[in-house]
């Protein structure tokens, strides 16, 4: 198997889907001639032509609106919004049309749009380049929210998202773009909506997604040095949420710490915590803890490591669930 970065795995997934289905379209700012600001679409316009891989104006609402119209006309659009913070000008199209067309047309129209969104912080970006808007999209009924944590999952989940008949907000963790691993370039054929136990453990379960899965694996290694066994659950999809795997994993340890980069208030950890209360209350040995970004706008890249949950902050939360 080739060793690929997440960027290369995403590129391979797009190439696979463009080759497999000639109604697949890739478009957005700078995705064509430049090949994307992170090189995710590198070489695709050259290989598939300017009619299937094309640049758009700097107009996010237009990008998503065009995707909605193309999907209604039978195409399979894979638009890119260049950065998470620039998805907000497109919220109108995403919330009022993209999320609603299946219901509005009583099922007459599929909406097979996969909106690629380079997301989260950790790369020292300026304002608008490091947001974590996942709970905005997860709270919008009609949208699916998928977020890979490593190169292999990025390949599998992007292929699955593009094949899915519903609109998927595909949040790519920028800080993991360059991390490499061996990647099998054969689509796994799994539908989206399955969580994955990436590390088994017996004392407590860390629940995370996107970039914080890697951080939680670092925490689990640190805890092992202290004789504490932590499991790590990668949700992979926030909508649909794999509640069965979530409840089972946490019930095995009885203790859960949920970690995300987004601010704490009304963050998706609150939803995870509520599901655990409703479905695993009897097996919980301690209240579910959250470790999140602070309730402030995402700070300057110079101080972002004081915002993103650190190994130490997560370890302190682990100690709280162990001590309860």
């Amino acid at each position, binding site marked *: 198997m080739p060793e690929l970065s997440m960027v290369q795995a995403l590129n391979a997934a797009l190439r696979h889907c463009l080759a497999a289905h000639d109604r697949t379209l890739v478009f957005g700012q700078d995705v064509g001639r430049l090949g994307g600001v992170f090189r995710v679409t590198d070489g695709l316009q050259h290989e598939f032509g300017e009619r299937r891989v094309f640049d758009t104006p700097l107009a996010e609402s237009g990008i998503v609106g065009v995707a909605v119209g193309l999907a209604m006309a039978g195409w399979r659009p894979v638009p890119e919004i260049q950065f998470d913070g620039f998805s907000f000008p497109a919220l109108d199209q995403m919330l009022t049309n993209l999320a609603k067309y299946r219901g509005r047309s009583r099922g007459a129209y599929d909406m097979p749009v996969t909106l690629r969104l380079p997301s989260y912080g950790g790369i020292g*970006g300026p304002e608008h380049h490091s947001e974590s808007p996942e709970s905005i999209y997860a709270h919008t009924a009609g949208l699916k929210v998928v977020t890979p944590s490593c190169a292999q999952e990025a390949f599998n989940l992007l292929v699955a998202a593009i094949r899915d008949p519903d609109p998927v907000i595909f949040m790519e963790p920028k*800080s993991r773009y*360059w991390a*490499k691993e061996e990647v099998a370039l054969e689509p796994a054929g799994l539908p989206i909506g399955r969580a994955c136990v990436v590390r088994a453990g017996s*004392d407590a379960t860390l629940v995370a997604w996107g970039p914080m899965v890697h951080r939680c694996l670092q925490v689990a290694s640190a805890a092992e040095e202290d*004789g504490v066994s932590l499991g790590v659950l990668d949700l992979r999809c926030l909508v649909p949420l794999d509640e069965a795997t979530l409840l089972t994993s946490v019930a095995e340890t009885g203790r859960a710490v949920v970690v995300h980069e987004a601010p704490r208030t009304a963050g998706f950890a609150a939803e995870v915590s509520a599901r655990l209360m409703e479905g695993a209350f009897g097996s919980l040995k301690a209240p579910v803890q959250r470790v999140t970004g602070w309730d402030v706008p995402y700070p300057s890249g110079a101080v972002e490591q004081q915002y993103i949950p*650190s190994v130490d902050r997560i370890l302190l939360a682990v100690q709280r669930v162990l001590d309860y």
Partner: protein
Amino acid sequence: MSDEFVFRLPDLAEGLEDAELVEWRVSEGERVELNQLLGEMQTSKALVEMPSPRSGIVRRLHAQPGDLVRVGDPLVTFEVDENNEPGVVGRVPREEAPPRRVRLRPPSQTQ
């Protein structure tokens, strides 16, 4: 996998033909980050600071202080990780585990 990247003197001002290297701020063998100051060039108009266009290891400095370098001539050869190029915005995060200070007390010792 690593690759070589040759940084050639860009046109530092409108229609510039050459510039004099005043001093290097990096040395051969040194690892530099994107936008780190490489050195200073004196053009006919101003003293210009030169940020690094890539992160990587400086393999060769092609000029000595006082040399006149023509636009388009090699200035620095970098050894770069070919798949580790940052995006147009931001930098590539470091991979090593962050430092920890907190030590856990295992559950058996706390109950």
